[in-house]
């Protein structure tokens, strides 16, 4: 038994060291080197790559990515919260089915689902045909290859990551708190704002982190749905490695984004610990 335990833990350790830790170290090292056309990278070591991050073009891309990720998180929250609330408080027999509907998209590759969205949004796609047929619009809408399309695609793709933690959290909410608020004369809106939201805040934050972080660096959705127009962090990194062949710069951007995300998770973790010990 002990041997098996050691073996299984050892395997995972080795696996992670070889395929996660080692590449990460390589990326960190690369980010301090200089780009070279023949050998990909060369000495001398330098901080220049990190210095370049602060030029206007990169900062604009960073802000755009944050803006997209924030919008996407907000959309997921607005759509996901009522949905999670209803299925979590609903004790009917449809509950497992409703939850299954949230999970089913995971069974298909998100790339394929993005193509499906293209089929819906494109100029002669399902959405436009339907709207034209119903006479609501007279000229097809140009949604595909726009910021809106990217936003729709990202929100759709990440919605389950918002719903599942919210569901888990709302399900645990003790309904006597809601009863107590009503007993004390609180209206439905006050009960929601003062009681339900604060008591499900950890679910809201978990869901938001799970949506915000991938939304920051998602690169195939902006390519497929945004055309080449919307350059975001994910695309920038991909570009640096594959098109510009500037590996050190790509590595530096990657490390910067990783640090940004780590600091956000760290802040969340700190605030969670603080609220527990308070």
């Amino acid at each position, binding site marked *: 038994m002990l041997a098996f335990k050691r073996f299984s833990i050892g395997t995972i350790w080795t696996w992670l060291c070889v395929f996660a830790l080692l590449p990460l170290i390589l990326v960190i090292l690369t980010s301090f080197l200089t780009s070279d056309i023949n050998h990909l990278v060369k000495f001398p070591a330098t901080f220049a790559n990190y210095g370049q991050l602060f030029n206007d073009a990169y900062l604009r891309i960073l802000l755009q990515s944050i803006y997209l990720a924030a919008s996407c998180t907000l959309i997921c929250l607005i759509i996901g919260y009522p949905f999670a609330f209803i299925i979590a408080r609903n004790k009917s027999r449809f509950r497992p089915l409703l939850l299954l509907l949230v999970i089913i998209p995971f069974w298909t590759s998100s790339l394929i689902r993005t193509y499906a969205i293209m089929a819906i949004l494109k100029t002669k796609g399902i959405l436009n045909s339907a709207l034209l047929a119903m006479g609501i619009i007279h000229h097809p809408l140009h949604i595909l290859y726009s910021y809106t399309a990217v936003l729709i695609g990202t929100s759709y793709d990440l919605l389950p990551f918002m719903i599942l933690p919210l569901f888990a959290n709302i399900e645990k909410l*003790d309904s*006597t*708190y809601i*009863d*107590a*608020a*009503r*007993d*004390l*004369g*609180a*209206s439905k809106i*006050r009960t929601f704002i*003062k*009681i339900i939201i*604060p*008591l499900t*805040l950890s679910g809201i934050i978990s869901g938001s982190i799970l949506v915000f972080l991938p939304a920051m660096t998602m690169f195939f959705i902006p390519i497929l749905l945004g055309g080449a127009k919307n350059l975001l962090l994910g695309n920038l990194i991909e570009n640096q490695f594959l098109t510009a062949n500037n590996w050190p710069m790509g590595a530096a951007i990657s490390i910067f984004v990783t640090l940004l995300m780590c600091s956000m998770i760290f802040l969340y973790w700190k605030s969670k610990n603080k609220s527990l010990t*308070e």
Partner: protein
Amino acid sequence: MSNIIEIKGVSKHFGDDQALHNINLNIKNGEFLTLLGPSGCGKTTLLRILSGFETANSGTILLSGKDVTDIPPEERHVNLVFQNYALFPHMTVFENVAFGLRCKHTPLIEINERVNNMLNMVKLNKFAIRKPHQLSGGQQQRVAIARAVINEPIVLLLDEPLSALDYHLRRNMQIELKDLQRRLGITFVFVTHDQEEALSMSDRVAVMHAGCIDQLGTPRDVYEEPCNVRVAKFIGQANIFDTKIVHTTQKTIQVEIEGEIFTLKNSDEFAVDENVHIVIRPEDIEVWGKTEIKDTTGMLPGIVEQVIYKGSTVDLIVRLHSGRSVSATQFFNEDDENLEYDLHEKVWVKWMPGWEVTLRHMDTE
């Protein structure tokens, strides 16, 4: 005293489950009324109907003369203290207590003043900025009461509020609650399954069983004059002999208990051949050693089976000849300073005629 709540013909069922059968109950202004009964008797359902969280299937409820049957809880002028307190965990003690006033858009200065006064009253002013989980069970209990009472409800409803506390704290809180009720002059409707709690705190007790009120009366009434054998069994301990009346006069009845004929008080126009329960409280039973008495008429012989020393009393279980056992509580007093009984000692058991309660069999028996 006028009626603050009038419950008229209230029935409630959950599916096929009849929780309340045609309840009629008037609650007087300023009284401490307890709904007492075993779990599932409908006492909590009745309380939730009073608070507005459940609606009765039929019947009406008047709150200081106004029909509130269909008024939702947030608009009723009553407040409920929840069994698990339901203090908002993310708010401080101050914010919890202030919640009701904020809902009514009370001016900030007034909120500050009233909350501080209320916290002083329940001796929690030092804990105003703490969160509920930093308080002990008794302190949480006081916050829950303060949070409800600050809204100056016409009636305060309490749903087994002491059940989560340990024995000593519960005794202290009973006294504190009773004291608070006197000072505030608010009507309390208290739900409990603990008969001792009900007797020690209430002005009146409504003993409930299976969705009906069996008896409504002062604690002394329900203890000393239970209306049926179920109430007698539920409230306090009771030795109950089932027997038949063999002879009656206007003032007395004669029954046979354990082969002995006893002449007892005719308290309710009993007739010959009626089946009755003779209820005798343990503290009314005297236990005498063989050597202590000479005349054994009206006494039953038995053997001491258990001796339980309780400090101020000694509880005995005596097995009678027929095999049934009787429990007796003996007090230390001047007549009998050392209550010493040996296990398996032969003793004589008696009670003062007239201290027993004679009850007719119930229809359901």
